[in-house]
């Protein structure tokens, strides 16, 4: 479904993404793990069209993705950016409606709103509350729900567990699994490597702009290098 082929991205002279190729198949959860500054957000923003790649190709459902973000969203690729970026002075409901900005089908938008409330019951109680007054976990739920309101085929989540307590992290990941089960493909980046890898169908490790390892979530999780670098587990000296 999503195919990134040999993509390079520069910030001026900084070569942030180097020959990265990744793939996400239908109804999978695909993760990218990597340290701070590895280029995870850069890769996501490039796929979403916010940043321009200098070479390589990105295709979706067999077609090359257009260059501008709003056209990419119209194709069904939606990014929930790092730090959520909700409209703090709009209510939960208004934020959800903003997510459906490109859609014209009013009745279906209302239905989807109800569906978001069954997926995220906490949002129903906070319906009229300003997004800026929600807790971190609630904000993350709202950010994901807002992304889903555009009815994406591929939902990209940049660090969905950022700044959340361990219990909330689990809740967010459970929801992500639910979303996948509804048939939406998920492509996410995470610092919380162990939790993310546990639910991933496929995973990539990104290091200073390069993919250094890939495999099923389980394989990557069990890789000794990954355990040492991202999970803080020391190998027994034997």
């Amino acid at each position, binding site marked *: 479904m999503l195919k990134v082929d040999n993509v390079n991205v520069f910030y001026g002279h900084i070569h942030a993404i180097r020959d990265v190729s990744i793939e996400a198949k239908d109804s999978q959860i695909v993760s990218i793990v990597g340290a701070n500054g590895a280029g995870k957000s850069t890769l996501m923003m490039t796929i979403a069209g916010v940043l321009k790649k200098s070479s390589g190709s990105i295709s979706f459902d067999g077609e090359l993705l257009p260059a501008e973000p709003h056209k990419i969203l119209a194709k069904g690729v939606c990014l929930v950016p790092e730090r959520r970026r909700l*409209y703090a002075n709009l209510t939960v409901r208004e934020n959800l409606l903003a997510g459906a900005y490109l859609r014209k089908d009013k009745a279906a938008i209302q239905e989807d709103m109800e569906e978001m409330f069954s997926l995220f019951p906490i949002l129903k109680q906070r319906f009229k509350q300003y997004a800026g007054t929600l807790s971190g976990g609630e904000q993350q739920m709202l950010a994901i729900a807002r992304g889903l309101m555009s009815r994406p085929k591929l939902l990209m989540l940049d660090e969905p567990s950022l700044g959340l307590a361990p219990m909330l992290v689990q809740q967010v990941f459970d929801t992500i699994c639910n979303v996948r089960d509804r048939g939406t493909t998920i492509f996410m980046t995470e610092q919380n490597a162990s939790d993310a890898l546990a639910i991933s169908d496929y995973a990539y490790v990104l290091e200073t702009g390069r993919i250094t390892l890939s495999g099923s979530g389980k394989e990557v999780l069990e890789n000794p290098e990954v355990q040492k670098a991202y999970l803080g587990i020391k190998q027994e000296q034997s």
Partner: protein
Amino acid sequence: MWNYIEGILCLALISVISVLGLTVFTGFTGMFSMGHAAFIAIGAYTASILTSKAHANFYLALALGGLMSGFVSLIIGYPTLRAKLQNDYFAIATLGFGEAVRVILENLKITNGARGLVGIPARSTFLNILLITVLLTIITAHYVYSKYGRQSVAIREDHVAAEMMGINLFTVRLRALFFSAVMAGIGGGLYAHYVNFIQPSMFTSTQSTTLIAAVVAGGMGSITGPFVAMLIFSALPEILRVADMWRLVAYGLILVLIMVLRPQGIFGYKELNFKFVKRWIKKIRAKKPALPAEGGDA
């Protein structure tokens, strides 16, 4: 006396028209332009040349002056907004643009160079300036409360989020720039036909800065604020005339005071409209019955 007040009011209202345009671009879309005097100049010159050399209808000339400014704004806006220049870089680009336009006007034959155009017919009267200001204020309010206005605010609040929602940053910003340039152009046309003489040195970056100051001091995200602020800014030099040499100091002091006391601007994110007045009256009414009750208890 009335003549004197009328004169000040006319010039103040003409400035208000240009500020209304900048309000849409800066106050609602969140982009800073330091070259709006250029759009005023383009409107002024276009309209004046049309009426004095081609004997065109005044209102047609005003409209064409506005459109000419709008057209030029597309030329400067297309490359800069397409490249998604950051706010400060964009402001610098418009600053350069403003100066460039002034230099071009100084060197063209049709504008009579630095000596300027004289004998522009006196077509701007208090009445038509007032009517045009009212009309353009209503149009600006409609723009701001339309889909376009909401898109603008979404971008001002968070342009990445807006882009992720599917808003096309480029078209929304360019549309706001175009609107603001047309308004500035119309203001310029009115100005030229009021003072009957224009020259390039009248349209400097100082004027652009005053416009921005009015928007910021009046309040971002408000039409009322910049409107009121521009009226004050225009009238202030006259009121302070008695203070003579302290005039400019007082002017700066007032600006600083506004920013210290009300950092969000006089009317930041608020409007003085029927809804506001209604709520205000309700508030006063709600307070009144409470007073006798208190008195009764005591």
